[in-house]
């Protein structure tokens, strides 16, 4: 499978580039729009939200604190949602291609993950620049975000492949995922700090693999501290299970996918 993917690397790269280019085609500002979105987010989060919410959030200090807190979670969540949502629809979206052209099907999840990563890199890049400009950049500890993001990507890829394959057989999966992701967002400490919720809710986070990931990122960028690695055991297990489930479901059904589309 990897060999086939390598042979089609040009196709994968071109597809990712195309996804990125499609949005900027025909607009005068082109690539700049890809930057304006994240910049807008940072501005909204820091200036508007921070002014309204700051007083109510324990453990978040100065004027930029809450904005940084939000950005850490929201951008990471954005990456997660993009991979899962796009992944769920990827086989259906490219149904005609799968039926008519012979190429490795596994290139589709790869394209989804890579293009989500490109978008994330742009957004996160803007965030990093913001941190440097405001003097809040945490220094070397920022590098510890890389394994955390990698963990998130593995988890999301596993889920996406698993759900995307099921979605071919039953379109209900895609509909359900859209709604479940909304609940999941609010059940993850992204807009509120974990300290701000009652104990029984906090106990619930023990079952949410996304919670430790988001908390780890917030810790890196808000407090400038490396993640508590032991807290990431649940996400690591969840990522392993998701990847295994995704790979097994995909492999078992790869030959049937084109028939069912």
């Amino acid at each position, binding site marked *: 499978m990897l060999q086939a993917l390598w*042979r*089609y690397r*040009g*196709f994968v790269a*071109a*597809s990712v580039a*195309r996804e990125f*280019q*499609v949005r900027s*085609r*025909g607009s005068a500002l082109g690539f700049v729009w890809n930057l304006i979105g994240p910049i807008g987010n940072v501005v909204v989060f820091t200036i508007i939200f921070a002014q309204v919410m700051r007083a109510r959030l324990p453990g978040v200090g100065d004027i930029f604190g809450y904005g940084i807190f939000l950005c850490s979670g929201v951008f990471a969540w954005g990456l997660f949602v993009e991979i899962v949502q796009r992944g769920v629809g990827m086989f259906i979206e490219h149904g*005609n*291609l*799968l*039926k*008519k*052209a*012979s*190429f490795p099907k596994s290139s589709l999840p790869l394209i989804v993950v890579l293009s989500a990563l490109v978008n994330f890199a742009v957004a996160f890049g803007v965030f990093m620049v913001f941190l440097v400009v405001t003097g809040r950049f945490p220094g070397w500890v920022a590098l510890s975000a890389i394994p955390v993001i990698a963990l998130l990507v593995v988890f999301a890829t596993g889920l996406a492949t698993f759900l995307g394959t*099921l979605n071919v*057989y*039953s*379109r*209900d999966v895609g509909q359900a995922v859209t709604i479940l992701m909304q609940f999941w967002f609010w059940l993850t400490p992204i807009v509120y700090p974990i300290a701000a919720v009652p104990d029984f809710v906090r106990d619930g986070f023990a079952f949410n693999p996304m919670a430790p990931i988001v908390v780890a990122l917030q810790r890196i960028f808000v407090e400038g501290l490396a993640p508590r690695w032991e807290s990431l055991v649940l996400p690591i297990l969840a990522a392993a299970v998701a990847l295994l489930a995704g790979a097994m479901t995909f492999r078992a059904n790869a*030959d*049937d996918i*084109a*028939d*069912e589309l």
Partner: protein
Amino acid sequence: MNPVLELRNVGKAYRRYPNARARLIETVAPWLGKRHETVWVLRNVSLAVRRGESVGIVGHNGAGKSTLLKLITGTAKATEGSIQASGRIAAILELGMGFHPEFTGRQNASMSGQLLGLSIKEVSEAMPAVEAFAEIGAYFDQPLRVYSSGMQVRLAFSIATAVRPDVLIVDEALAVGDAYFQHKCTARMRSFRDQGTTMLLVSHDPTAVKSLCDRAVLLDHGRVIKDDAPDRVLDYYNAIIARREAEYRIREVEAREGSSRSIRSGDGLATIDSVDLLDANGQSTRALRSNAPARLRIGFAVRSPLPSMTVGFLIRDRLGNDVFGTNTHHLHGAPHPLEGGRRFECEFDIGRMSLGTGSYSIAIALHQSDSHVASNHDWWEHALVFEVLPDDEAYRVGVVNLPVRSAGIVVAGEGALR
């Protein structure tokens, strides 16, 4: 010689679910039992194709032709049997796979080429040739959305055939583009064949199968029912069409008892029972060579006595243009009084079928005196469809085959041009 492509007892089944819920239940809870129906679209197909051989695959819609190509290409997996292929397979199951309207012809060609399994290097090396073959000029670097559909087809075919594959699989992609480009495509495929490419071609166009293929395979209901020289297979195929048409006619007549239909009109005082086209041996046929002898036989029933019966026919080309028509009134002059409650037969000796190659339909009319406007008993549109195949004479175009002769080019006048 070892076959390049070998299929052994290949079969393909699809699952058909009664509804989406049944599919969901079976997916999430397979232990609750089977909720689908298995539909075999191909069964026991065995085929061996040698290097450089080109095989035409013919058959009705739904006979399993496209499924067979998909199995060989690898976009679908055979349910049973084995498929072995060697070398690079290029499949044109659909032209313009992976095209996006916002990107230029060059960018789309590059994407499409990679989708066909070419490496980045091969694609960039082939690009000048793609540009030259497509002949779309400056449009090559314009976004695809400003292309005419013909230009898209040119681009798509150029990239699909940019690098000579070991096995080329083409699914009815030939009936595209203008005549000039079609000719160019055919020439390219022929040159591939001469260089050793094995070809599989699905086509409804008997002329294309005859001119490009060494062999033809007839599929019917998912089975190979004939594998022979294109001539013989096409004859056999036409015989099946004739049989189907006969069955269809019976159904049509049955349907007429209940409802009204647009292709058949008339007062019913006389009705057409049968229409048949016969070849030189008096055998029923639906495909003739150009200039071959042919007869048209019409059987009809008359309910009540008619003072001056006329039987007529009209041949139309595939676009519906009148090509030729006449009737017994004009051929005979004298009126034909017929008694009622009997069956009659009328035969037209067409002499030679001096039509150009292509598909034609015949309309039959029963009416009084010289034209069907006066009193129309039965008018049957598309009563019969037949195919005119090329003869062994020189290449010609158009709907008629005129007996043109030429002694070639000779010098006119004296001296050279100044």
